[in-house]
């Protein structure tokens, strides 16, 4: 049984003039200790997916259907009280901007102690000891001093280390990292990512990495999901997708990256931009920008087909697979 299983999750935003579909039939699973990448443009629904897992989707968003199973237990059916025991405790989350995620008026120590005391019955002294140990674990310089400092006294990289320490505080099973390095500069990014990776491996923590950085995903994760307009259009082992992307959108994303081997090459651009939630076209949402568009694409959303170990939702890909199957085996 997978640690986390998301089945046909539908999330909508109730706005004037009807509902907007933010997530449509999202299904994926996460095993213990596995590292999963969630990739897509801004507005594809990555963060909505993360918050929906914890049932923390803010008004006017609501979960319209589907289920989220954590260790086989349905989170959608749980009471707020039960959910609170899972949030932070079993599933922790790291946010994008370390400047904003820490409470500016409480010391680092206070925030860590409080998180521990919210979930465990321990004394402040014991909680402080655990906090100190976790700060040492994220190799922050002079951790005992940091406990009594306010967030504004720390640098961006140090704050993100503190945030990782807080995420690890209760030894969670899953860490959802929502663009954890976007707000940091490149050298710090690499350090923070290496640290996060090492800590997850060490404690066998599953990591769900939300990002639009394909390079990061290819280095860190074992499996990846590509999202577009609230749908998962491709999912499978990261290596296979990066090396041989099936969906035209994923191909476009990868071609848009600069390559080391080809200096001076003009980077590929996917024409157009992602539709806003209120104007998602019928059929495959990518069809207005797709080079392989057919009438079929304009009318119905394609089902997933298997290509190798990768699940893709694209008519073009399914056609290619059919052709391959029909073609007689050519032996050299």
């Amino acid at each position, binding site marked *: 049984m997978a640690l986390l299983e998301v089945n046909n999750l539908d999330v909508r935003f109730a706005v004037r003039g009807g509902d907007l579909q933010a997530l449509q039939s999202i299904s994926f699973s996460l095993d213990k200790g596995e590292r999963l990448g969630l990739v897509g443009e801004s507005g594809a629904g990555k963060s909505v997916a993360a918050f929906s897992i*914890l049932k*923390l989707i803010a008004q006017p968003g609501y979960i319209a259907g589907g289920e989220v199973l954590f260790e086989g237990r349905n989170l959608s059916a749980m009471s707020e009280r039960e*959910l*609170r*025991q*899972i*949030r*932070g*405790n079993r599933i*922790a*989350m790291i*946010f*994008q*901007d370390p400047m*904003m*995620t*820490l*409470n*500016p*008026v*409480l010391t680092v120590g206070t925030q860590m102690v*409080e*998180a521990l005391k*919210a*979930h465990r019955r321990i004394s402040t002294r014991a909680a402080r000891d655990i906090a100190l140990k976790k700060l040492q674990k994220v190799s922050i310089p002079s951790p005992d*001093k940091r406990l*009594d400092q306010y967030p*504004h006294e720390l640098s961006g990289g140090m704050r993100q280390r503190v*945030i990782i320490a*807080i995420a690890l505080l209760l030894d969670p099973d899953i860490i959802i990292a929502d663009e954890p390095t976007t707000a940091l500069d490149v050298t710090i990014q690499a350090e923070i990512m290496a640290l996060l990776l090492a800590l997850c491996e060490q404690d066998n923590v599953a990591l769900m990495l939300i990002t639009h950085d394909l390079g990061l995903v290819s280095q860190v994760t074992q499996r990846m999901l590509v999202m577009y307009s609230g749908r998962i259009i491709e999912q499978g082992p990261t290596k296979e997708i990066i090396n041989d992307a099936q969906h035209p959108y994923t191909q476009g994303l990868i071609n848009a990256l600069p390559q080391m081997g080809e200096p001076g090459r003009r980077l590929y651009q996917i024409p157009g931009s992602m539709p806003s939630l209120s104007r998602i076209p019928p059929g495959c949402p990518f069809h207005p920008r797709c080079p392989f568009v057919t009438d079929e694409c304009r009318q119905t959303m394609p089902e997933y087909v298997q290509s190798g170990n990768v699940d893709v939702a694209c008519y073009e890909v399914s056609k290619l697979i059919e052709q391959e199957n029909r073609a007689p085996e050519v032996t050299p």
Partner: protein
Amino acid sequence: MTTATVSRWDRFRESFLWYSFKRDKIAIVSFVVFVAIVLAGVFAPLFAPADPYDLAQINIMNSELPPVWMAGGDAQFPLGTDAQGRDLLSTILYGTRVSLLIGFGAVLMQGALGILFGLLAGYLGGRVDAVLMRIADVQLSFSTLMVAIIVGAVFKASFGNLMFGEIAIYMLIVIIGIAEWPQIARTVRASVLAEKKKEYVDAAKVMGFGTNRIMFRHILPNTLSPIFVISTVQIANAIISEAALSFLGLGMPETQPSLGSLIKSGFDYIQSGSWWITLIPGLVLVVLVLVINLLGDWLRDMMNPRLYKG
């Protein structure tokens, strides 16, 4: 360890608060005057030459004596006496104490109500917000004094004059507190609305903290600076409200006068030339309210996040 732990005092001395205070003459003067008045009020029994509450010390023959520097003044009464023969200096000291007590007490009361309702309205939103803020709106559409007069009159009628005299201080605190809570509630609500959209609130939710903990432990401390600023203004307002109520005869009784009731008691004699009974406590009241407002202004400039963030 070579780096000594930074004490709170060191932290304060390096803070922007202390830095800007040192450079603002108005703030320093206001603060000194304010502290002097507060100390004089708090330690009134030590400074005052007589006890105005002790009827045995009052001699009606001494009534309406002018201050010592005027013809007919008595060295025993530096600022003269009031219509009942009480030493005016002692009465003012005791009156300042009463006024300050009511001012601070009323703001504590307002603060408790305002913070609670403001937090609930701002954080929970929806129906709670609508109901609480409509109550506040309705109350704000009356004048504060009118609410206080109505509540005060009801209390006075139900307790009787004698009993009311004994509990007048607490009654005034409650009355002014109830009449002014919407001011603080609105300020709190506005800052809560801004704070609750910030990521640290999401982070707190993700950590599995409950609503109460997020409201009081995480959001409230972040809204403290506007609360602090408005509280200083509200202290001045409460002192004035109390004076106004006392002047109208709904406040402190003559037997334990506040600054307001002293002014009122002198007002009847101002035509007969005894101006000091009204003017001197009036001056003290004006100075007290002025320095509180000046301090409040300075605090507001200080804590304005546009000028200073930290």
